[in-house]
């Protein structure tokens, strides 16, 4: 029973690592050049602070995910891992939310502020950003589930222990 639990946990952490890593990489490699009525338009993730924050947050979360995978199972550091899980869940959730907000402005514009949508001119860039956002969203959900599972794991054995 404990072995399947450990296996499930390992699998979940691997999936979280994969999701955040792919989100960071796909967003960082999104790049498109378009020219629109003799105006050259270059769309890169660098142009928007929200996307830069998204790449940095997911990269840091991937490094953390990689380090946690190598932690031995009986170490006392697992208590710190639960606290760090909260911090990194917060980071990943805020990054996906910020990137979603800016991407929504890019796709639909904001008529009250006079901001025109840009997705029509740089379709490939928009699609790649969309893929990165989906991967980031999956990463955020897996981190949330991992946190719930960690809390359950910590609380359960304390009550089932016999001395």
């Amino acid at each position, binding site marked *: 029973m404990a072995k399947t639990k450990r296996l499930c946990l390992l699998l979940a952490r691997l999936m979280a690592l994969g999701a955040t890593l792919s989100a960071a990489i796909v967003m960082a490699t999104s790049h498109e050049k378009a020219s629109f009525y003799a105006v050259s338009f270059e769309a890169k993730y660098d142009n928007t602070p929200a996307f830069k924050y998204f790449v940095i947050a997911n990269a840091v979360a991937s490094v953390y995910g990689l380090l946690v995978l190598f932690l031995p199972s009986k170490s006392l550091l697992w208590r710190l891992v639960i606290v760090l899980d909260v911090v990194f869940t917060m980071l990943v*959730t805020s990054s996906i939310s910020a990137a979603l907000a800016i991407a929504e*402005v890019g796709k639909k514009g904001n008529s009250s502020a006079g901001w*025109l949508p840009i997705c029509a001119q740089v379709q490939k860039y928009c699609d790649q950003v969309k893929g990165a956002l989906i991967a980031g969203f999956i990463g955020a959900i897996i981190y949330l589930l991992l946190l719930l599972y960690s809390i359950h794991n910590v*609380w359960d054995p304390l009550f089932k222990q016999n001395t």
Partner: protein
Amino acid sequence: MATQGGGKSEVGVNSSPALKPKDWVLLSLRLVAFFATATATIVMALNKQTNTVVVATVGNTPVKVAVTAKFQQTPAFVFFVVANAMASFHNWMMIVVEFYGHKIDYKGLRLAIIAILDMMTVALASAGDGAATFMADLGKNGNSHARWNKICDKFHAYCDRGSGALIASFIGLLILLIINVMSISKLLKPKHTAYIGVP
């Protein structure tokens, strides 16, 4: 059987009316977080500014148009208001439960429920803050690559109130994070096993 007895005595000790000194720290932190998130919600929800702009001149009379900036025009700010409202509701409920919830039978799950709810509120509030921060930055600096003009030079009061709401919300989020870490560390304390071992 031993664990059942241990669980019951743990809930029995929890329902004593006197609050321990550590509970006062947690309670005052929750109060401050409640005020911070409630302030952020209210200030952003009442954020509205109207400017009259001269659009054209017909003959001798200038044609004026009233342009309004309100928080509903930006979905990120709407999410910000909703997230902070839910966070302040959560804080208020936790304060009420701390004072009046001693008679409810939690079946030993009290600390776990509090930790899980705290964690979900932290995630929600951080999402709201992240989205609103970057939208505010877009409104303040614009984005030259996408040809999006900044709007803060025309709507000073709107921007100022928005940044005030953001700062209050960040303070609330930080305190919520501290509270969450404290709730989780309460779960991790070896105090629980001491009750299980007592016959």
